[in-house]
């Protein structure tokens, strides 16, 4: 059971890496183009909406581009009203375990509150924090840490 969940995580991470380029070239809000992505699916969210927002070091405030991503997520959730989501907060490795679990929760809550403020029913959004236990990037450098300070939205 959990193996499957972990597998899904890995797939999300790989797709996310691709989506950066996709977003730059095709712009946001583009519909799936012959790639077999099912509209309203997790893959759709990742490829065409953006599944994650990023935070500054030791901070949980949303940045301009993060708000833009969450605006698109809110619109997407309005369109696919059957989808409930989990927002998972994450931290880089430059903090203590216990504080980072709480900080990841604070990041997830900030993203969740923004979605709710944009009209998503609070009952549709759950939160969790993985502290620094589920990094996207595996390196020990600033580029990796910047990627790992995030809140990731996934369809439940």
């Amino acid at each position, binding site marked *: 059971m959990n193996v499957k969940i972990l597998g899904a995580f890995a797939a999300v991470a790989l797709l996310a890496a691709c989506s950066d380029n996709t977003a730059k070239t095709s712009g946001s809000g583009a519909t799936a183009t012959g790639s077999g992505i099912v509209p309203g699916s997790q893959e759709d969210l990742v490829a065409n909406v953006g599944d994650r927002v990023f935070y500054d070091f030791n901070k949980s405030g949303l940045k301009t581009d993060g708000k833009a991503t969450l605006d698109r997520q809110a619109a997407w959730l309005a369109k696919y009203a059957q989808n409930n989501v989990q927002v998972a907060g994450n931290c880089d490795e430059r903090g*203590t*375990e216990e504080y980072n679990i709480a*900080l990841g*929760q604070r990041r997830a809550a900030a993203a969740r509150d923004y979605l709710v403020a944009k009209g998503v029913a609070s009952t549709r959004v759950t939160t969790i924090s993985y502290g620094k236990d589920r990094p996207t990037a595996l*390196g020990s450098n600033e580029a990796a840490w910047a990627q790992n300070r995030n809140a990731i939205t996934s369809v439940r």
Partner: protein
Amino acid sequence: MTQSEIPALPLADLNARGFSISRRGLAVGAAALILPNRLYAQTAPASASPADSAIVVDRARIDPIPIAIPVFAGGDSVAQRMGNDIAGVITNNLARSGLFRTIDPAAFIGQDTNDVPNFANWKGIGAQALVTGKVDSQGGNKLRVEFRLWDVLPGQQIQGTAYSADSTNWRRIAHIISDVIYERLLGEKGYFDTRVCYIAGSGPRDRRVKRLAIMDQDGENNRFLTDGTWIAKTPRFHPSQDKVAFMSYANNRPRVYMYDLDTQRQSVLGDFSGMTLSPRFAPDGNSVVMAQTTPGGNADIYTVDLASRRSHQLTNSGSIDVSPCYSPDGTQIVFNSDRGGDQQLYVMGADGSNPRRISFGNGRYGTPVWSPRGDLIAYTRLFESTFAIGVMRPDGSGERILSESFYVEGPTFAPNGRVIMFWRETPARDNRGTGFSARLVSIDITGFNERQIPTPTDASEPAWGPLLA
């Protein structure tokens, strides 16, 4: 396991003030009154007074006690092998403490064939203390281990004790003997007959498997307690029972659980809507203090009574309050809060009253833990690009950094307050995570004698348990 004192052997050269073996059992607190001064390692007391903390560090480095630990004799081949192994465990314990210099057996002169050692031979190689022992198989799986601790120069027996136990308990006998030697020669309790709970990490960094694990303090008898299906974190030992509180991501609802080491059952602790984390037992073992996250993204500190499972809220600061830890007398709690803007240490009354900040050095501070002696608080400090393990007095004065590197975290005290264990991470060398590792490390509270603890996997978040015997 049973134990009995064995009388001092009749010694031809026993001088007039020679004493017979203590019949008060192992808990001899008055070792300092009995032993000649030269037998003490010139170690600083673990509780440094304000004025002499600089001297403490210097004194701790010199004069470990030279001690010889020949293989324990055995009646048959099985007992001989066990005698060899027991002497090996004792040697390893005492050497790793940094307070003893175990003499290389290659230097030993001759072999004692009588019960009474040939003290001249031991004097000749500079031994001040000598440990001798015998192992006898007693049929079935029973074992009798007899040991004697000798003061070499006057040729006196300091301690003689015999232990009868299942042979599967041979390691515990070796640890108990190590603790007796430590206490008789240093005048304070040892910490060898203890276990350490920790989190065993394996697999790629982005799908890390984190299991609850337990081992003896020297890294032996390692066991994994959870199967890795869910992330396990922050284990803490109950002060007297075979129970561990820890955080589990079971069913994707991260909560604090109690794990019973005897029944291997776990149960969620308290009924909280938020995530719960960072548990610590009260010194009396009747309750746990821990943090719960709030819907708004903060965290408050609660206690949960273990009998009634009722909870009681202690903080409500609109910030992240985590990592609470009681003072050993149970009257105060040190914790970690960002109420002032960033992560710092605060001390409050056990009822949540009068919180005051105690950390004012450079950087952020986390994971405070109160020494069992009550005189120090150990913590993790994050400053610029380095992490450090340090100690300060409960009022925040006397800050002293013990170890510093790319990443160190999570100090835990040995039950005698003399040694701290924490973990160290080595950074990944590339973007595939190559080279990342996490290992447990112990260090004397003077900042010397840093040693890695052998573990079969990556290891983090150690929690040092109480003395078993």
